[in-house]
């Protein structure tokens, strides 16, 4: 069921009506409506996949309770002991049991994810693509997202961050909350569950915010991302030695807009839908193209995945004993700065390789991850040199000029990364980079683009340009600390409707130009 469909509108209206009617009659039971709606939404994507989400929900829910039970048992046993060594031994014994269980549930869930997502790629690499062992299953809706979300719950309960959920249906709702199933965000239990299980009454301002967010997401998805798909493909699929670098760079710039609009637009839409129920999901984008460094960019782009990687991969890895030893050794050998940043830099490279792998098993994703990890690592390691250079050049690092330079520099670095992300064949990717650097030939751009015969190319670019201008204005306001939605909500009612209508018309113009809607880029993760 597409979000932009009559079926979804009817489904949403039905769910909202039931939700608020139940909220009036029996407030404590509102979460049941959400669970039924979520299961209904999931079943609409294919009942065959229900087993996977149930497996994840049951295993993680059970393990969360098991951890709490083991903690309680350990506490009880330790209570009867006076000897500290015995107490420590008891704690370690239970910790070992918990660790075994943790690894078991991680292996189970990551194993399912790996089997469905990577097994065929591994067989293909071994020349066994047609093997009877090949996975014949279609990727279940939201597999990566709900797996990561559930594993964060398991690790948090393992660490005793919060009490586990006692009710399986309530936990199932946390895993299957329907707006997050398509492409995230990866919500945290302690932030989402209280909202899902709480009581919500209709709220005009919150509903307005939800509608605005939903409309803004539709504008991004259908008036920018969708109308740029053909141009991006035409520019970047099949790069040849004679392809002008300017055409490749133009395609990458369009891809920047397409990808951001597609992913953040989709997230805006699902966050808007969730907001209509009074449930605020995790923010996933914060004006990423205003970032001043690549590290900053990744703290603004796909925030929930970045935070997940930070909490469950980066810190555990950077704080391991070998990494600490490496830090001490390099501190002694190369100085304090290197000693402090080298473990983190290495952990960053590993994290970005994993993020690359998360995108898919193809080599270009690994290259993309490696590129990002290395750039961030090098930037961190050479930070003192950069500071020294600024001092020598007498540049005010806090000034507006340098801020703009850093934003533009980051934009450039990010876009180089998109070459690896978008151009599937690594050889073509390096060819595209080479042409961009060595054969830019801007005078050939217009002719080369025209010769691609993209349907309604200029109209698509014009519409995307208008929509990008709206997105830029909203982003700029947000970057300056203004809430565009709040500004609009302070205006007269009719003006708010007009704003919705303008965004709606732009969205519909996207369908006029490109009648067939593409799915979300991140829907199959």
């Amino acid at each position, binding site marked *: 069921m597409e979000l932009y469909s*009559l079926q979804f509108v009817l489904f949403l209206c039905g769910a909202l009506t039931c939700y608020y009617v139940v909220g009036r009659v029996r407030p404590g039971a509102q979460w049941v409506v959400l669970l039924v709606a979520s299961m209904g939404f999931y079943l*609409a994507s294919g009942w065959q996949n229900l087993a996977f989400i149930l497996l994840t929900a049951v295993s993680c829910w059970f393990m969360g309770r098991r951890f709490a039970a083991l903690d309680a048992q350990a506490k009880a046993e330790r209570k009867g002991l006076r000897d500290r060594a015995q107490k420590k031994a008891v704690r370690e014994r239970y910790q070992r049991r918990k660790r075994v269980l943790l690894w078991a549930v991680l292996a189970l869930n990551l194993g399912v994810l790996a089997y469905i997502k990577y097994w065929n790629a591994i067989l293909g690499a071994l020349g066994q693509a047609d093997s009877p062992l090949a996975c014949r299953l279609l990727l279940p809706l939201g597999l990566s997202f709900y797996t990561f979300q559930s594993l964060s719950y398991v690790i948090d309960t393992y660490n005793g961050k919060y009490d586990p959920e006692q009710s399986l249906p309530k936990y199932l709702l946390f895993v299957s909350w329907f707006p997050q199933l398509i492409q995230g965000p990866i919500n945290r239990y302690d932030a989402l569950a209280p909202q899902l299980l709480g009581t919500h009454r209709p709220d*005009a301002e919150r509903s307005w915010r939800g509608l605005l967010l939903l409309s803004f997401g539709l504008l991004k998805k259908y008036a920018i991302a969708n109308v740029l798909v053909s141009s991006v493909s035409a520019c970047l699929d099949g790069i040849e030695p004679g392809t002008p670098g300017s055409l490749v760079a133009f395609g990458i710039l369009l891809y920047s807009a397409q990808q951001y609009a597609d992913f953040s637009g989709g997230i805006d839409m699902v966050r808007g839908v969730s907001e209509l129920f009074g449930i605020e999901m995790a923010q996933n984008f914060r004006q990423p193209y205003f970032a001043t460094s690549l590290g900053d960019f990744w703290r603004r782009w796909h925030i929930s995945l970045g935070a997940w990687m930070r909490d469950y991969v980066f810190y555990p890895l950077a704080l391991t004993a070998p990494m600490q030893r490496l830090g001490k050794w390099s501190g002694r050998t190369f100085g304090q700065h290197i000693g402090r940043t080298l473990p983190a830099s290495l952990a960053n490279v590993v994290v970005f390789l994993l993020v690359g792998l998360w995108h898919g098993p193809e080599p270009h994703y690994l290259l993309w991850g490696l590129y990002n990890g290395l750039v961030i690592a090098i930037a961190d390691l050479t930070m003192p040199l950069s500071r020294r250079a600024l001092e020598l050049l007498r540049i005010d690092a806090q000034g507006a000029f340098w801020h703009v330079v850093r934003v533009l520099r980051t934009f450039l670095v990010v876009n180089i990364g998109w070459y690896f992300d978008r151009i599937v064949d690594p050889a073509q990717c390096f060819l595209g980079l080479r042409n961009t650097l060595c054969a830019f030939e801007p005078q*050939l751009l217009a002719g080369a683009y025209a010769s691609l015969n993209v349907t309604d190319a200029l109209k698509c670019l014009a519409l995307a340009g208008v929509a990008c201008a709206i997105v830029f204005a909203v982003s700029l306001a947000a970057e300056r600390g203004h809430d565009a939605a709040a500004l609009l909500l302070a205006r007269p009612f009719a003006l708010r*409707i007009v704003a919705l209508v303008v965004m709606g018309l732009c969205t519909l113009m996207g369908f006029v130009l490109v009648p067939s809607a593409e799915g979300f880029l991140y829907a199959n993760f």
Partner: protein
Amino acid sequence: MRISKLIARVLCAVAIVWAANALAGFVLEPVASNSRAMWQDYRATERLDTLYLGTSIPEQAFYPQVVDAQAQTSSFNMCSSAQHLEESLMGLERALADHAELRCVVLGLEYDSLQKVGVSNPGRAFVRYKNVDDPLAAVRDTVTLLADDRLLGTADSLNWVFPWVNEHVYLLPTDIVSNVRVKLGKEALPGASWEEVERLGQGFSTTSHVFDFNEDLAVPYVRTFGGAPFDERKLDTLRRICGLCQERGVELLVVFPPLPVFSVLSYGRKYFDQGAQIRALVGEYGARYFDFNLARPELYDVTRTDVFADFTHLNRTGAEAFSASFGRLLVELRAGHDVDGLFYGPDEYLASKDYVDLLCVETQARDGGIAVSAEPIAGEGAQLEYQMLVWRPERQDWEVWRDWDASAEALYVPEGPGVYKLRVCAREQGKDVPYSRYRTVEAAV
């Protein structure tokens, strides 16, 4: 908030959205769309004994007046752009209800009609104008289409609420302004012609443009539509059409109108297999299948190059020629003659096509030059040779850089970097003509 204020706000919101939708519709919805014009013609039709159904290919092929003159029928062309079989069935039911005298249904079938789930906009327009005088039927047809797999859960289902999204004028300022001026009454509807389409009555519309096999964009049918196996649900709909005709005692002829020969050749042997599949299916219901692409010259000359408006549709000349042939076929059928001999079998057909019908050219920058590769679409036995030329703007003339040779590939090494206009000519070996087909491309090095 007081309830009265809430209601006022909801009404205000609905009014603004409705007004915006109506305004967009006023500006963009064509004053004379194909479906609207066709259904206007239909309502004006008094007698109808022969009905044509199908997509834009039969829409621009069956010229009712020509067939009527040939076969003494009173026919009507109910085809529309990308008409799905489900819409054809709706149209058939309507015609059967309106015209007890209906005796023959001609389903203009192309393979894509049995393959695609496809675009929905014609369904939207077809149903809309079919039911302007019947609100109940409008609701029934709308629900039927919205519940169909091709719309259910898709963006098109929501865009159903905004008719102008799928049914609009060309997005050129001149067309939009002209559309608005006609609607405002400041400009007359340009007679029977609109957007280069001539409407000649009885549901028939056509164009006079002649497709140039050498210069115009040409994409073989199989590359446009994919050549997938037939969809089981579409075959079911075809069975329902056949069953309905059989039940009502109406003769059903399933006819594939002519495509350019290159579309048949590039489809491969599968073309004949899929044709046989259709023949077998409709045969179970006593209906007959005729593929005019396999017609022998004595019935219809498929090799003519002046009969197409583009690489898929016939122009007015082509419609006249084809409809005259189809009329003759009807006469032969009515007379009870055996008409199978008027069509080739697969092997005979392929053996009869020993020439190049379309030339495609691929280029690739390589070794400091442009690698040129000619890709002809020709009969199996065709022996071809190629000549390669480059445009010299300073002389405003073509210069041969490789003379006639059987090799379809060559490397053009220019004096310097730039964008070059290259032409490849192809002809059958031993034929003393400047070319049989050519294609011009631009390539950068």
